[in-house]
């Protein structure tokens, strides 16, 4: 996978004007704290290509990136629809992976930061699309379950430079937690679908 990234990176010609060497500056000015270790300032190829193209990579590059990201997702066998009640808690919370979070403690989805979900929650963000009525509008068959699971696990497999974090790939959420979020979005009993 990383080799594929390297290859993709080579396709890009560095810009002609003198850009500040951000990588070098970050290496010098940042330090590890808690679980936020210095490897995080090193851009992977996806981050680099999105930065360099202002989040608009050429279609062929985007396609190749998405295909690569898709390989990071291992779909669990069987039903992917977990417990929507646990899912709602995960969607509400905003912790996980910061230097102030306890390492190893379960993370949250931060979903409401960017999306509307259950109608009772007034405090929702609009960076992402509203997901209200998601399952009611699209059904909850195996294909839809798979799509939702994959999108939460690694959003970049569906849209290379999406602003949505790769919640499974980054280690923020576990397989079980993502299934619970699938339940929140697709279960007919979930408040999202009322």
């Amino acid at each position: 996978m990383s080799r594929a990234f390297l290859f993709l990176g080579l396709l890009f010609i560095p810009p002609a004007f003198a850009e500040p060497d951000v990588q070098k500056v970050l290496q010098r000015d940042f330090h590890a704290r808690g679980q936020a270790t210095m490897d995080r300032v090193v851009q992977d190829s996806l981050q680099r290509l999105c930065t360099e193209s202002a989040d608009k990579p050429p279609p062929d590059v985007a396609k190749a990136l998405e295909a690569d990201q898709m390989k990071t997702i291992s779909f669990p066998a069987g039903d992917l629809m977990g417990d929507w009640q646990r899912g709602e808690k995960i969607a509400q919370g905003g912790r996980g992976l910061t230097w102030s979070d306890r390492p190893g403690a379960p993370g949250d989805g931060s979903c409401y930061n960017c999306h509307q979900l259950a109608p009772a929650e007034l405090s929702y963000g609009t960076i992402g699309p509203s997901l209200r009525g998601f399952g009611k509008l699209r059904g909850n068959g195996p294909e839809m379950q798979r799509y939702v699971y994959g999108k939460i696990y690694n959003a970049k497999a569906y849209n290379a430079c999406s602003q949505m974090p790769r919640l499974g790939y980054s280690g923020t959420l576990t397989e079980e937690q993502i299934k619970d979020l699938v339940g929140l979005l697709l279960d007919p009993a979930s408040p999202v679908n009322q």
Partner: protein
Amino acid sequence: MIRRLVCLFLLGGFSCTAVLAQDTKKEIQRYQQMIAEGSPVELFELEGETLWKKPQGPSNLSLERCDLGLGPGMLKGAYARLPRYFKDADQVMDLESRLLHCMVTLQGRKREEATRRVFGNDDRPSEMELLSAYIAGRSRGAKISPGLSHPREKQAYELGRALFFHRAGAWDFSCASCHGEEGKRIRMQDLPVLYKPQHARPVVATWPAYRVSNSTFKTMQWRLNDCYRQMRMPEPAFASETTVALTLFLTATGRGEPYRGPGTKR
């Protein structure tokens, strides 16, 4: 036919939510206006003034002779001209890095000691926070105009701009992930598009600020530090080139606005 009905239903529902969202926005603005009116922020300016005049460090001197860019001890309007290039330090500095410079050069303190506690809490605000409150308050009414003419200032501005759009960290964020598109909000909070002047102006005109969610006074260095924390990045060093460059980029984008802080935030 059924499809059309569903559509109508959906459309009806949609405009209904839009109206609700409008009301919510108005109410949130009212909340923000009311907390600003009932803000204890002036108390921090008072404490900061005491600290500014207090002799400290091995030299047992106060900071009253500190040169914030307009000459030693000249406070009026000084904050509104920062960040800027300082010849004596051969560096572009924001308020806090300049204060740190004065603590070291004037008061004879060790950098390590002076930066041990740069971010305070609700029980005990930090020295930097109190001093920032006092000094920023002395720029009320002054037009924001950071340094942009010296080559080093131009260089810092460009670095700040590049940093703003640089995606990294465990969640692939750049500053623009949250502050790059108009009309967006995180939870209830409207997100200013900070590379656009009309959005940056009210922001730079009101930082540093009393933040009710922290019940204490917070500086721009803290704001950037906590943004990077929530971006799931490692920690930027206090008063580093990174944080000063970003501050210059944001301040320059919002230049021309009269300073009306220290503000009060959610």
